[in-house]
């Protein structure tokens, strides 16, 4: 079920006393990434690194990779199957929303290979 990983991560972040607004950003991004993995990939994992004032989250899937990343970053562009769309996902906002939610985003991907999203969140909340 999509959202379980994001939900578990949220519980963890609350215990670590991460500021609520940062938690919100992380959860939005991780939720979207989680949906992406479920909708487009065979499987994957989410890695979290906590540092003094920033959090790195990596979402690494097992393929098949994104053929055209620029297109995938376009709002509204989606390759989601009808099945996924019927569930209310696949609006083509996943990657753009992730980019908006995190402070830095880098994506490794190659058609036929896997995809790795590296997201960085700074803990200092902008006033």
């Amino acid at each position, binding site marked *: 079920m999509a959202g379980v990983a994001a939900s578990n991560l949220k519980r963890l972040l609350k215990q670590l*006393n991460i500021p609520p607004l940062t938690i919100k950003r992380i959860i939005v991004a991780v939720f979207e990434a989680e949906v992406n993995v479920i909708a487009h990939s065979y499987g994957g994992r989410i890695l979290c690194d906590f540092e003094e004032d920033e959090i790195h989250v990596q979402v690494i899937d097992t393929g098949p990779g994104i053929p055209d990343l620029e297109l995938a970053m376009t709002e509204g562009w989606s390759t989601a199957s009808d099945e996924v769309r019927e569930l209310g996902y696949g609006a083509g906002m996943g990657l753009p929303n992730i980019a908006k939610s995190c402070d830095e985003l880098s994506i490794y991907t190659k058609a036929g290979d896997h995809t790795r999203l590296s997201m960085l969140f700074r803990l200092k909340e902008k006033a």
Partner: protein
Amino acid sequence: MSTQIFHHALYIVEPACKGCTHCMKRCPTQAIRIAKGKARIDNDLCIECGQCMAVCPNNAIAIEQDSLSQLQAYTTRVAIIPAVFFAQFDDSVTLGHITGALYALGFTHLYLAETGVDILTVLEAEDQGAGRPLISNFCPSVQRLIQVRFPLLVDNLSTLRSPAQVTAMFARSELPGLSDGLGIFYFSPCAAKIAQFKTEGSEEHRLFDGIINFDTAYNLVCTYLAKHKGEMQEEKSSFSFPVCTRKALRWSLVKGQSSHHSGRCLAVDEMHNVIEFLEILEDEQDTNLQFLELDACAEGCVGGILTVRNRFLATERLRHWSSTVPKQLDQDLCERILKQKKAFEKNLNLEPVLPLQVLGLDTDHAKALQKLRKAERILAALPLIDCGLCGSPSCKALAEDIAKSKASIRQCAVLKLKSAKDLNSLARIWGERSTAADGLQDDQA
């Protein structure tokens, strides 16, 4: 507001407490621990919902109460009474009887708290809460629950003043000539409202001079009525406080607030339902909902911990009563409201509340992470049957308590029974000193 020291109205009656685990298991924020055979409430986590008091088999949890003698300090004694209070009595006791008894007990003016709903309508008050869906702030226990357990949702909390507050402001402005010796009292159906009122610096603390618990008032009214059975007829005329509209009178019932909002609304009552719902809401990215009415007590305020009568019977009486009051606001009252308009029309919203970071294992992120890791390792050694014998509500809670140095693994009765020797070595691994024979550590230690 977050810097306020939150007052707590619930307390443990130590001589009566047997250290059973009922309250600890029930507490929705895991605020209760048992130490040295007595329950103890963590004030940072307690949201005053009263679930512990409801479930206690030994009457060992009580709510602070002020005596009626506090009235004597004032010459003008105003009571702001929620409609739910009148629904505590069965049909043989008329509204006239109740108001008559209250006047006889020393009150000079009686206002219905729900009048505040009509005042807000007349003044066309707009909620300045920012988030959507907007969550009602009417139930102080839910507000605090969100601050403590769902900090991501604090922006969704409504900022509109509660009807009782507005009514108190109205009464204060309407009775200015009498302001010397003016005392405004609120009748509370629950611990949460008492706590809110007694928190220094809160709006309730400023607006009200005293609080009277529902059960106390109920007993006083019943006693008076029993003593003055013969005189009941003449009391009927004393029913004189402004009546509110039908919609307003149903405010404190489930879905009572929803009818004041356009768009899609949802009402959830009872603490465990509310928590289940908030968990979903926090994860949900989009909802079509505009307004959420969340009540800590089953059936809303009629289920308050201080109420006397069965909540369903009380709901029925309140509904029946509301069907007899007009749909339109009384013209006189409307004019009275407009006359006082200037006094408070710009002051109908409260400061937004802030999240409380009390769930975290440590204020420092790095230390919190360390403690989280430690708790995970400890949890792996625990039996995971959540028996509660250690004095923490679950094995996970015990693991976290140990990581926070607030408990010892020696408290685990299951490990002790299995192998006392292993337990000792575990205790050494977690870096604990050998504690006293029973292994119970004090919270303060």
